[in-house]
Structures are given as C-alpha cells and as structure tokens.
C-alpha cells in the first residue's frame, strides 16, 4: 500500500466504475483506542478534574488515564494536524482524539507523563504569539465555540465564523483556562439562521443575520431556479409568482412580510440578500442541551443586531462579556445561564446584563403568544417605569 502520485491515482477516468469501492463506511473505532482505553472499556468508575484542562479517569481495574484537553481552531491545516501527531507520538504512543466541541484531547497513563505533556503543549506558540494548544476547556468555564464556515467556504453567511470565534475566545481566554463560573458556559456561533451546529441550544449564541430583503435577478430566475421551490422556501409566505414586463417568469417579494431568513436564496441563486450595511450579528442566550436539573432549553434572542465590525467584532465581544460577567457575579452554583435568567426573570436578566430591550425581541411568529407574559407577576426595573410614565401612570 502507498498513496499514489499519479494525477488520477488508481482512478481511470475512461472506466469510472471499474475497481470502484463503495459503502465501506468509517474505519472501526477499536483500532484507534489507546491500550488503556481498550483495557478499561466500560469499566470506568469515576473521574476528577485535577486542574483546568486535565482530567483523570479511574477504572475498576485500578488503571488511570490522564486526559489533557486543549483548544483547537476547528479550521486547521495539515501542518497543524501533523504537529498534533508529533505530540501524540512523543507523549501518547500515537493516539489522540477530538471532542464534540472540537477541542483536542491527549491521553497518558501517569501523572509524570501528564505534567510533561502539559508543559509541552503550553510551550508551543505560533510565531505571531498565539498559543497553538492552550490547555483548558474543562469544568465550570467557557470552552471552545462550536461554529460554522462563514466567509471561508459558505455562500449564504451573513457574517464570518472563524474571525468572530477568534475575537471572542481571545477575550474570554481566562474563562477557558479557569473554572470560576457557576456552571459551564457553552458559546456557539452560526453565520446564518440555518444554524448549522448548536446556536438554538447554547448558553450564549452568535448568529449572522440579514436585515434587507433579497434583490431579485429577474433575468435568470426562470432559467436557474425551480420557482415553486423558491415560493415554498418562505416561512412567512412573502414570495409569490410574477412575470417581468417582457413576459419572463419570476417571483415578487412582499418586503413587509420578509424577515430576511435567506432560505429562498438557499434554494435559488437569483435572490441574493447579503449586504454590507444590512448584515450583522444577533445574540441569543439561555439555551442548554443537558437534562441536568432543568430540561433542555432553546436559546432566546437578547440582542437583536450588532454590526459586522470585521475582523474583531468589538460590539459583539462587549455584549458577550457583559452577559458572562453578570452571570458570573449573580448566578447560583450549578445554574446555567438559562436557569439563572428564568429564576430571576428575563426583566432582571436585561437589567443585570445592561442590555436594551427592543420590540425586535418580542416574538411575533406563529406560536408567539406562548412567550408573552400572561400574569401580573413581574419585577420592577427601569424599563417598567418607562412604560408606566409613557402610559401616564406616573410623573
């Protein structure tokens, strides 16, 4: 076996179906388990977090495995993966794994090896200064940001992913390397509301958002798009069939019914909607996936729009930090951001996080009524006094 250097490798373009192997699936997991994992599979008794980024699992057999977790960029080059392999070969007999949040985990069997590994990881820096493999991401802190393609590879984004994540993780870096919060904070990011990933269910979520209806390329609509699919793509029924003056089939969009989701563009290249001034970032908060104490929760929109200030998104970083700091100062031990917001009431969430509440945050889609407050139970905040004043209720 060897990889081929021929332009087509073993593939013969003249006989494409010859020697074709299909439906092999992924390789089997067992060969990728370090021996200590194989030997103790299903026998683990308990674990401890020895320090930020370092776990130990103890088996019924008495075996231990020390795991050192470090941050990964998710986007990475083969050069980076080779360096990961160098580390794995040097310290871990050639084994390594990645987590569901795209961190990297190296496993060793003794405390001494763990210390050497950790030291090695923290000593590796890019020539321009950033850590290559910062150790952290365990316990009650902020771990890696699950994110998407952005401008690096996608055609529907309203913002960029890798740059925003870098900007935020730089700012929250102490939380990645610390375990100082009431519970773990999961931050996620998606560059449009297809929400590839975890935006709809994270403690804090960043979402690329458009604010202008599509511009219609009537010239090519009928030739390049399946018009009924474009119409069916709209959640609010804003799109209907139309004809151009010269009789070409196209669509029209009721601008006042369009909320800029971009799903019609996903279906049809003739309705692009990206726009420098219109596009930006929406922040959501309070979602979770685990069933611990409370049930899984959706994240809720808490900041309707912030500008795309490339490359470091200062306004987005500012508001994320406001939320994390208010939560860190106020929440009870074990409370996730959503648990905290629900206990104190969302009116207090906005007050404590110093975030303005605007009409954009009030739901008006289908089941919106279930989110309105049908109770006289509320807490007074400055926002309430403003309404009382506006209604003529107080001076």
């Amino acid at each position, binding site marked *: 076996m060897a*990889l081929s250097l021929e332009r087509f*490798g073993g593939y013969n373009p003249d006989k494409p179906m010859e*020697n*074709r192997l299909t439906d*092999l699936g*992924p390789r*089997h997991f067992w060969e*990728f388990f370090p021996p200590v994992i194989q030997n103790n*599979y299903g026998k*683990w008794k308990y674990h*401890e*977090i*020895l320090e930020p980024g370092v*776990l130990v699992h103890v088996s019924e057999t008495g075996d231990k495995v020390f*795991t050192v977790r470090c*941050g990964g960029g998710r*986007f*990475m*080059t083969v050069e*980076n*993966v*080779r360096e990961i*392999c160098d580390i794995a070969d040097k310290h871990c007999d050639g084994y390594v794994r*990645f*987590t*569901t949040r*795209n961190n990297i985990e190296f*496993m060793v069997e003794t405390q001494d090896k763990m210390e050497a590994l950790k030291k090695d990881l923290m000593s590796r820096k890019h*020539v321009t*200064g*950033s850590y290559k493999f*910062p150790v952290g991401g365990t*316990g*009650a802190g902020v771990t890696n940001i*699950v994110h998407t393609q952005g*401008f690096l*590879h996608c*055609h529907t984004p309203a913002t*960029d992913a*890798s740059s925003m994540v870098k900007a935020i993780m*730089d700012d929250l*870096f102490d939380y990645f390397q610390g*375990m*100082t*919060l009431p519970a773990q904070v999961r931050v996620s990011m998606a560059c449009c509301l*297809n929400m*590839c990933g*975890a935006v709809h*269910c994270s403690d804090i979520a960043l979402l690329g958002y458009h604010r202008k209806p599509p511009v219609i390329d009537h010239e090519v609509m009928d030739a390049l798009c399946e018009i009924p699919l474009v119409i069916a793509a709209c959640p609010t029924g804003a799109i209907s069939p139309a004809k151009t003056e010269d009789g070409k089939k196209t669509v029209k969009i009721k601008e006042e019914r369009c909320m800029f989701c971009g799903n019609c*563009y996903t279906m049809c290249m003739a309705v692009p909607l*990206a*726009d420098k*001034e219109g596009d930006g970032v929406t922040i959501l908060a309070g979602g979770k*996936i*685990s069933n611990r*104490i409370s049930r899984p929760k959706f994240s809720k929109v808490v900041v309707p729009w912030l500008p795309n200030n*490339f490359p470091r998104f200062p306004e987005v970083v500012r508001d994320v930090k406001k939320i994390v700091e208010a939560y860190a100062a106020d929440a009870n031990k074990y409370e996730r951001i959503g648990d905290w917001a629900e206990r104190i009431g969302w009116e207090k969430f906005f007050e404590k996080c110093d975030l303005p509440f605007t009409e954009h945050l009030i739901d008006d*889609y*289908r*089941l919106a009524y279930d989110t309105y407050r049908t109770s006289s139970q509320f807490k007074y905040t400055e926002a309430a006094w403003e309404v009382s004043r506006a209604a003529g209720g107080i001076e």
Partner: protein
Amino acid sequence: MAFEPNEPQEKIKYDEMRIYSDEELNNYTEEELKNFKTKHDTPMCDDLESGPWPSFVADAKREALHRRKLADDRILLSAETVEDTLGQLEDSFVDGETHWKHGGIVGVFGYGGGVIGRYSDLQEKYPAVAHFHTLRVNQPMSKFYNTDFLRTICDLWEYRGSGMMNMHGSTGDIILLGTTTEQLEPIFYQMTHEMQQDLGGSGSNLRSPSCCLGRARCEWSCIDTQDMCYELTHYYQDELHRPAFPYKFKFKFDGCPNGCVASIARSDMSFIGTWKDDIRIDQDAVQAYIAGDIAPNGGAHAGKDWGKFDIQKEVINLCPTACMWMEDGKLMIDNKECTRCMHCINTMPQALRPGADTGVSILFGAKAPILEGAQMAVLTVPFMKCEPPYENIKDLVEKVWDWWMEEGKNRERLGELIQRWGLPKFLEVIGLPPMPQMVTEPRSNPYIFWKAEEVPGGFKRNIEDYRVKHMR
C-alpha cells in the same frame, strides 16, 4: 471485551503510505515563517494573529509557506491555494459579504452526496480557489485516532487538495476544505482503496451519525455509543450515500442524559442512554463528600470559593423531583420518583452511579429553525434495550423512514412532518400506544379529533332522522 470490525480491516502504516519525506515535511524554519509575506496584503486577517487563542490565520500561513517550498510536482493544486483563500477572506471582510458563488453540484460516481461544491466569484483575482470543493470524510466513532491514520490523510490531502481542513464538521465528519473537481475521484479512490475509508453524507439522506465517547472513557455511559453508531452507520450505508429521503436525517447517540453529543437538539432520531433500576449509592463515599475529602462535581468549580460542600443545598434541594433525603446519616433516593436528570451523579461521581439495567430513550424530530421553527426532539420510546445487532432499533428506524419517505413533503424534516400530522398520527404509524411521558402537559384546547369508528353509530347520519325529533 474487544470489538471487531464488520469487515476485515488492514492496518494503515504511515511509513508505507507516505508521500512526503521528513525533509519535505520540515522544509521551513521559524525564522522564515516570521519573515514570510503572503501573496496578498491581508491586514485584517493579520490582526487575527495576535491574542492567546490559536490563530487560524497563523496556522494557514504556515501551510502557505510549506506549500511554497514544496517542489512544483509535489502538489497537484496551486501552491497559492491557501494564500488565495486568505486573500478572498480579506476581500470578504472589506466588502462585508461572502465571495463564494451560490451552490455547486459535484460528487463521485455511485454516490449522491459527500461532496459540497463551491466556486469563487473572484476567480480572476484568486484563481487558486476558483474550484474549492469540500469533501466530508466519515469520522471514526467519537473521534479517536492514531497518528498513522491522521498523517496519511494529511499527505493525501496536501497532495491532492488545499491542505486546509476542519477537525471536525458539526455533524462529525472530517472536513477536507478545498479541492478541484478533477481531484474528487482520485481522492475518493485513494481513500477507499488505500485507507478503507469512506465519505460521509450530505444532501437529502442519512448524514454521518455521531456519538459521545461513551464507555471508552466515561463512567456514566449506559450504552455502547460507539458500537451502536458504527453498526447503524454501516448498516445504512446505502441511505447515507444515495439520497432517497424528503430531506436530511441525522442519528446521534448520547450515552446518558448529559447530552455530550447534543442528540436531543441536533438529530432527527436521538438516542439517549438511561437506566431503569436504582441509582447505585456508595454511602462511604457520600460521607467523604460531606466531610470535604472529595471535591464536588469532580472539582469542576475549583476556580472559585463556593464554600464547603453542602449536600443538602447542592444536591438534595436541587433535585428536580425532590426525591432525595438524608436518613440516619445515609443518602436516600426514592428511585420511582427520579427522572434521571444526572445532577446528583454529576455532583458526586465517586458516590453515585447510574443503575446497571440500562438501555436507551429514543426521541424524534430535532431540527434548526428553517422552516417552521427550531425543535428539540420529542420523547417517544421511554426505554429500549439495545444489544448488537440492534434489530429492535433497526425495525423502529425503518418504520419511521417508511412513513416519512411516503408522506414527507419536499424538504420537510421529520420533526415538521410530526407537527403537520400530529404526534398521535406518528404514534399510530410506528405502532406505539400513547403515554403521559410523551407530553409536558395534556392539551388545553378541546379541539379533539375522533375517528368515526370510535364513536357509536359512526359519522353517517340522515338529516330527515334528525328532523323527526327536531322541527326546523
């Protein structure tokens, strides 16, 4: 207990597979990297090189330099692919808009998915990324690797692709980011023939299933997440590679209700490990927690002084069903009332363990907002034993697919079909009786459907008969 692959599998040995010599792999110095200027001016990208978090720009630049210094015949794509990627990214920052054209349909013969086509809309300025297709490579379960495998992928991808990747895509795949149409088949050929490694899913099909690390390194996993994930991925290869569904469909396997792979939010069919007997209590360890000898929650909160561990405040009072108490210095749990939320186990992992009689809960219909709004998965099967080869689970999968493939509209996720037809209809087609556990609460509106056969006399009536008793 050792697991065997379904098909015999040859070991990958990097030394036999490699393309690049050690010299070629180490073809630049730190000094050269410091002084390296990429082809395009990218001041905003450069700004992302500072700060502590691993910089994707710094990483991209070393691959750019590495490619520049490889001989021309040692890569098949342009040496400038990474630099053009950064150049186009910079233009996107300036313009505030993406520069990838809409869509792109490419792939490999025999499959209907696995490759995401992409073309630049600035092809003259950035010719090296004119074609920039992504391959999804089906990851090994829970992303354990050996370096022979990773290094082989790296050589293959550097030679026939951009050298840029995502470890990993949100669904789980290894993402190979950026190659030309011409190289898709050769890459696929090399992967299947030399590595026994297949592509993942894309399009209206079964996407690459994924799982938490389960019993490999967690004391809470109630199921063999890897084994289930591997078995179902292999069993449904046809459904994964050849789109036959109304829309996409995802499996995810969580070993316990902590949800480390987020199946409840990110899969159409969510498997969550659980148990049906009692939580196992080690009373001596409970005492050790109370005495302060063991840090709560495995030490997850060690970065802040939260005071001495208080079992009443931190465990008993936070139990969502209030089914725990202390009696004669012992921790008691009324397991009939426990909803297995994991809090007490998470907080005292050395004292409490999930029960030993384990299986899965199965939930259906999670999805992101498009079209009808985001959904979490709905509890449908409370408990199911799952032992290889998982026949009972496959039966259920196929009942669900039969219905959705027949009734689902174009681009309608299973969760939306369940909404459109109603949960009762879904239960009927998969042959399950209703249970109170399927709802958070019973309906509050009285708009209740009945079938004619449920009502004495049925629906066929005559107005004349009615008029005999009721004058017009």
